[in-house]
């Protein structure tokens, strides 16, 4: 495949994966927690690198998933100990992120892992970072990781669709009919962590938040049905990735940054023009 096609594929895969996970985050009011996880994942990646001394994807995934879960756990712990929930999110992620940045600048200065990369991603280099797995031809590492995470997420969502749906909309009822709400919560947090780390290479830790939240938020303004929301959200993710890539090459700016901006523009359009929940249609219907 050509250079351009690889970037588009990887960007779209990241957009889809993030978009679908993001829907649940929005419905369960966990968006800020995802923001926190996407920051603290940096620490997981640094620790994985320092312990394993390699940039292999598996170590990164495991380290990120663990630190992601620790973040979710710490936030829970602090807020059950009398710290306001928003504040406990703020404390946890800034601390873990700060430790990650310090570790990077102390120990990992001379390797491929640097802070700018971690923040903004280097989707431009994705097509050259190839790995050979089993019988497959050499494929970009980011593509392989994103595909695995995408398939994993799809499997989890399909298997636990009912559970996710009920816990998202009515956690009390979910608990009453015997769904392990806490387990589902941590399952979702685990999905967020691995999604974040898989998208990390291409779009960076901070901009992954835009990919997680914006498509879902746009989709939420267009539909009331979860399945439609998931599909729409994935679609918006892909649209933002493709349009973001082309506008970035046109303007010669950061690709991941322009993908995030495009996500914002899509949201703005939906926010204004959504047929039922848009600002304009609301204004019109209230003036009649």
């Amino acid at each position: 495949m050509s250079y351009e096609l690889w970037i588009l594929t990887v960007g779209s895969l990241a957009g889809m994966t993030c978009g679908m996970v993001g829907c649940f985050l929005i419905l369960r009011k966990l968006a800020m927690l995802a923001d926190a996880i996407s920051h603290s994942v940096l620490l997981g990646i640094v620790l994985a690198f320092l312990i394993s001394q390699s940039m292999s994807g598996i170590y990164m995934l495991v380290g990120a998933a663990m630190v992601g879960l620790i973040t979710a756990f710490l936030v829970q712990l602090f807020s059950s100990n009398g710290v306001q929930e928003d504040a406990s999110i703020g404390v946890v992620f800034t601390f873990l992120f700060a430790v990650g940045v310090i570790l990077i600048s102390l120990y990992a200065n001379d390797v491929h892992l640097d802070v700018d990369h971690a923040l903004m991603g280097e989707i431009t280099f994705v097509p050259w970072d190839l790995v050979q797995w089993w019988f497959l031809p050499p494929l970009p590492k980011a593509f392989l990781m994103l595909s695995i995470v995408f398939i994993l997420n799809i499997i989890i969502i399909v298997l636990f669709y009912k559970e996710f749906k009920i816990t998202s909309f009515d956690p009390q009822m979910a608990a009453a009919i015997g769904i392990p709400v806490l387990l589902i919560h941590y399952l979702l947090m685990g999905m967020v962590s691995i999604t974040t780390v898989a998208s990390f290479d291409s779009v960076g830790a901070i901009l992954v938040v835009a990919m997680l939240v914006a498509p879902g938020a746009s989709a939420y303004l267009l539909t009331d049905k979860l399945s439609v929301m998931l599909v729409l959200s994935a679609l918006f993710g892909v649209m933002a990735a493709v349009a973001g890539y082309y506008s970035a090459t046109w303007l010669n700016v950061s690709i991941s940054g322009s993908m995030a901006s495009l996500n914002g523009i899509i949201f703005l359009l939906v926010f204004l023009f959504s047929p039922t929940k848009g600002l304009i249609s609301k204004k019109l219907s209230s003036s009649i």
Partner: protein
Amino acid sequence: MSDLNLLQMILYDANTQWVLLGTMLLGIASGVLGSIALLRKQSLIGDAVAHAALPGICIAFLLIGEKSLVALLIGATITGLVAAYCIQFITATSILKEDTVICLVLSVFFGFGIVLLTKVSQSPAGNKSGLADFIFGQAASLVGNDVKLMAGTAFILILVTSLLFKELKLLTFDPAFAKGLGLPTKFLNFLFLTLLVAAVVIGIQAVGVILMAALLITPSIAARYWTNSLGKMIILSGLFGAISGMAGTLLSTFGRGLATGPFIVVSATLLFFLSMLFAPERGLVIKWMRRIKYNRKTKEEQILRTIYKNLEDCYLKSGLEECLVTTNAVASELAFSEKLTLTILGDLLKKGYLTQSGNEWSLTNEGLFKGYLLVMKQRVGEICLMHREEFNEEEQDQLTSKVIDKPTDPIAERIIYLLDQYNMKPAISPYEGKGLT
């Protein structure tokens, strides 16, 4: 020794002194405003504002073409305010929840900032502009005038907040009442948001856009552990902010070239951990000790009650008042381990409630008073439960003392009558001749 020399060198360096003063004032200002933001549940808006400062900085740079701190900070303030208003507007007009909107605005503005940053670095002047330092903060790169600007603004912020303390306090805790009093709540809301944005903006050069939120949030929740009064909380939070600002600056200067922001954040978080553990009243250690004490007390009371009841049974069966209870009987009745039972029995012995003869125990006179009181309290509680329409369960303690001290009171008489009816009156009374038994 060399470390000490280095420290001396750092402390006597004129620029470092300015930077220290600047980060200290910054810490105070953001700690103070952060506490109010925390109580208004707006902590994370500060996070969004900080991220949103990045595009403003870049736009200002692209417009002016050189690195003038004042212009950059004005740009940052404008986009910061725009972000804060976007959050409030979208939350108010759509079904999306505030946290989703904060996250959305934060990441989109930051993404746009990154786009602009790449644009800036392509311009000839921008290549070495050091705008990227704003992401993580580089206090050491601050030069005299920057620090004076930062320190001056921080000082003004502190001053304005202390002048408007009463109004802001009212706005925070009871906005409806504030409106009723005729305070311009809309204007105050705008003013507070502006102060918050200003605190964030002057902080980003030292702490960086990503971690600036921590300087608002962490000192204030640390302070929250120590006090319930807003005034004290603000002062403490300012103090914590100042300490972490200075400690972080010193640590990063030690490491030469390390970003300042992360160290400030780590210092602040350590203060938070210390507060969470050791604060009086709300600290975890105190709570934990209190719980252990309470558990111990409950167990002591259980054992005293059990011994009393065993003595009562024995008295009712045989008419003897001098019965003895074995350790095993107590342990098996309460399902305690033998070791635990013995420890607590030993404690009670030391307190003078028990007499021991080998493996068997009885109550001293003092213990009898205590055991009688505990058993009476329990049984009065049961009566309250059985006769909910007559007695309030929560008044159990008062009712018990009435029954013991003023048995002629009509309510006490009624309870004693009921106790008799149910055969529940404690049989061995230390108050002989006082109306009971």
